[in-house]
């Protein structure tokens, strides 16, 4: 894996981005007059509301947790998928296939439970 190249281009893009932002700062200049209203965040023109942590549904975070759990199960399928043909060639096909069917059954049961328990409802 060309790790050196990846690190190099990452740093290159980082420097490129910083230069771009500084360039834009320099050519954009500063307005002579400024006001408090200008530096406010944009809330469609009405005066800014004080409370920032207004209701954000916990759903977002629940979705992220369920994502992690299912993501790992999917990652577990990757080595299986890449080796499946070789397993069949080496004669271990039925065993590996059977173990994966059990795993998939667990996965499907989990998904079915999440759907049934309305954990994934957005209302």
């Amino acid at each position: 894996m060309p790790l050196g190249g990846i690190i190099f281009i990452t740093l290159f893009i980082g420097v490129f981005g910083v230069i771009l932002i500084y360039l834009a700062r320099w050519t954009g200049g500063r307005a002579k007059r400024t006001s408090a209203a200008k530096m406010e965040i944009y809330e469609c023109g009405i005066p800014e509301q004080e409370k920032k942590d207004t209701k954000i549904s916990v759903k977002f975070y629940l979705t992220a947790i369920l994502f992690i759990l299912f993501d790992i199960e999917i990652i577990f399928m990757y080595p299986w998928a890449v080796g499946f043909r070789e397993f069949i060639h080496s004669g271990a096909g039925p065993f590996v296939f059977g173990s994966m069917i059990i795993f998939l059954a667990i996965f499907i049961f989990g998904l079915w439970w999440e759907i049934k328990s309305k954990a994934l409802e957005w209302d």
Partner: protein
Amino acid sequence: MPETNILTTIGLEHYLVLSAVLFSMGMAGVLLRRNLIVLLMSIELMLNAVNISFVAFSKFNNNIEGQIMVFFVMTIAAAEAAVGLALAVSIFKRFKEVNIRFFEHLKG
């Protein structure tokens, strides 16, 4: 045994020392910080340090089982983070508090 330069020849020890340093950092985080979520993050850091040493041993002993262990550790770390955060969030919803000291008052 030929003399090797510690700066230019990277061996198992280098990875293990790095892993130990990261692990101690994670431990210091657990001991020093007060924010519950930062504590969880420090635990993740410790688990990562362990993963480094697993992979290093796997490479230098020519044994793939270390990588399998990393797989399992990652799964368990993710599960731990999920449950830990779920607990932290439900406590935060109830008491508006994430200070670890606060948890001493939880009873029953």
